């Protein structure tokens, strides 16, 4: 699928202070039955965000007025663990989170983010904790993300550098479609295909 290229990005930071946030929390299973890619934002963190009677829970961070319109999600270690459901990335994107910041992510979720134009930034524990502290202190705390330069600019003008795999960065910046990229290697795929061991093939008429 084609993605929109990732541009410089700025927005309010929403702190989600929990470790091991799994994709079942990001998008609970009752919302996986849609056959489209859009419309999942309203269900993001559903069971934490809403009471069983559908009223918003005032104790959940997304419902705090000061984080309304938040565009950057600040999280703790092993964010996105568990189920491979890409619906988690779709829900974050649809809600408006195009950048995540956490000390670590689960592998499948991390991949899913890049495939959908979301930038999951990894910073060390100390830097993430520092951000949690600063967000708590200042209402409207916003960060400016420059993917090209790999920097996060804080409200006080200080810059933090982040690392990102150069290939993933290029794909995000250019909004590259994976499949067309792969098909440039058609010759190699075809020659690999010809050398397969017989057990790798299947007689489907069996």
């Amino acid at each position: 699928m084609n993605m929109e290229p990732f541009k410089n990005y700025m927005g309010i930071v929403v702190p989600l202070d929990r470790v091991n946030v799994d994709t079942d929390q990001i998008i609970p299973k009752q919302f996986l039955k849609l056959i489209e890619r859009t419309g999942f934002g309203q269900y993001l963190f559903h069971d934490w965000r809403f009471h069983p009677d559908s009223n918003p829970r005032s104790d959940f961070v997304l419902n705090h007025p000061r984080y309304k319109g938040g565009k950057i999600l600040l999280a703790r270690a092993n964010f996105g663990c568990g189920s491979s459901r890409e619906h988690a990335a779709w829900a974050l994107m649809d809600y408006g989170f195009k950048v995540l910041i956490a000390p670590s992510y689960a592998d499948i979720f991390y991949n899913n983010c890049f495939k959908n134009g979301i930038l999951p930034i990894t910073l060390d524990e100390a830097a993430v904790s520092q951000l949690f502290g600063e967000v708590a202190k200042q209402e409207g705390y916003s960060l400016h993300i420059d993917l090209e330069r790999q920097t996060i600019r804080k409200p006080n003008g200080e810059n933090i550098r982040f690392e990102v795999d150069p290939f993933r960065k290029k794909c995000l910046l250019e909004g590259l479609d994976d499949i067309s990229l792969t098909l440039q290697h058609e010759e190699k795929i075809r020659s690999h295909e010809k050398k397969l061991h017989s057990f790798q093939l299947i007689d489907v008429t069996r």
Partner: protein
Amino acid sequence: MPPRTLFDKIWGNHVVHEEVGRPSLIWVDRHLIHEVTSPQAFESLRLAGRRVRRPDLTFATVDHNVPTTDRSIPIQDPISKKQVEALAKNCRGFGITFFDLKSPHQGIVHIIGPELGITLPGTTIVCGDSHTSTHGAFGALALGIGTSEVEHVLATQCLWLEKPKSLEVRVDGTPPRGVTAKDIILSIIAHIGTAGGTGSVIEFSGEAITALSMEERMTICNMSIEGGARAGLIAPDETTFRYIRGRRYAPKGEPLEEAEEHWRELRTDAGATFDRSIQLNASKMTPQVTWGTTPAMVTDVTGKVPSPEDFVDLNMRKAAAHALEYMALEPGTNIQSIKLDRVFIGSCTNSRLADLVAASEVVKGKKVSTGLRAMVVPGSQMVKYQAEKQGIDKIFREAGFEWRESGCSMCLGMNPDILAPGERCASTSNRNFEGRQGRGGRTHLVSPIMAAAAAIAGHFVDVRDWELAS
């Protein structure tokens, strides 16, 4: 050639294209598909006017959202029905083999792959489901992927993959009676943590692993993802080959002999190095019960619910406090005094024939505790058929268990099988996340025999003390 690990060998056989500093393009031998993570992939494929490159290597079934009640009744939930119908239409349109709800081969995708001989050593297997790691039990590199990657594999039969790191988990010793593969993997996760395997492929080795049956090895590899791993692997051996022989899509005759010759080479060479290695001893392991909301929040059946104060790390302390609140448990409570409302025996972790046989021996001639609701959901129609042939269903039914049709069922509660808010369940599945089995439901992960014994007693019991009827 320098000594290589099992993983290095499989990886090397599947690289289509590689460049320094970039992910590698990896050939995919088997693509398994189900109704929940595929519709958007097919839709994009269609919009781009692309075809499925290798429909002959792609297999589909319905498992996640299907009801486990009478199959002659149409699916009641209109949205589930729409998803199931979308998969049927996509398989027809693109020429993919599809085991539908009426097929004798329908079942959880990770149960039917091995059953049908689709899963073979030395292959790469992907599926839009994190528990694809299950197939690693055969010495296959098996990865869970997202829907965009499903689309990519449909179109190209390849996957871009950064080469994972390698982690050796060696388990020596013999587990005591009553300690199962489930207890071994829960003990491993407790040791490495839920992110201990992130970015890595785990190779499980040691005498406690090689002594396991294929069913048990699948339980181990299935939960690799619960330790954060990209995949789990066990080197194929005679146990593997015996399991494969005669299965529907497995090679036969001379091609099988050739394949086995190749598969015998699929083991880590002496002197090969892993990025990381850990050793555990199974002889010291005990039956495990989770008390919290991640699989690493687990303790011995003879243990107590911990206190948040027991954790040094501040984030873990907070997580434990949240988990205890959600689970409605007091620190210091004996695990065996935790009373249960529900018992679920099923899921891609523990719903194979051997799991059901073992659990049935525990419940034989006994009755489910008053007020407790217990259900058995066989992993596939084939498991169900074989169990019924052996009279296993009767044992469960007479004990008061519900005996159901195959599917993922209450492991993730996408179908009507869910916990009511506040209900507490002993489950043989793989995730005790908040709300996983139903909003407000409280899940404790255990082995099939521990779940069976708990269903009879109404609370957790140490299955090592259990008197079997036979």
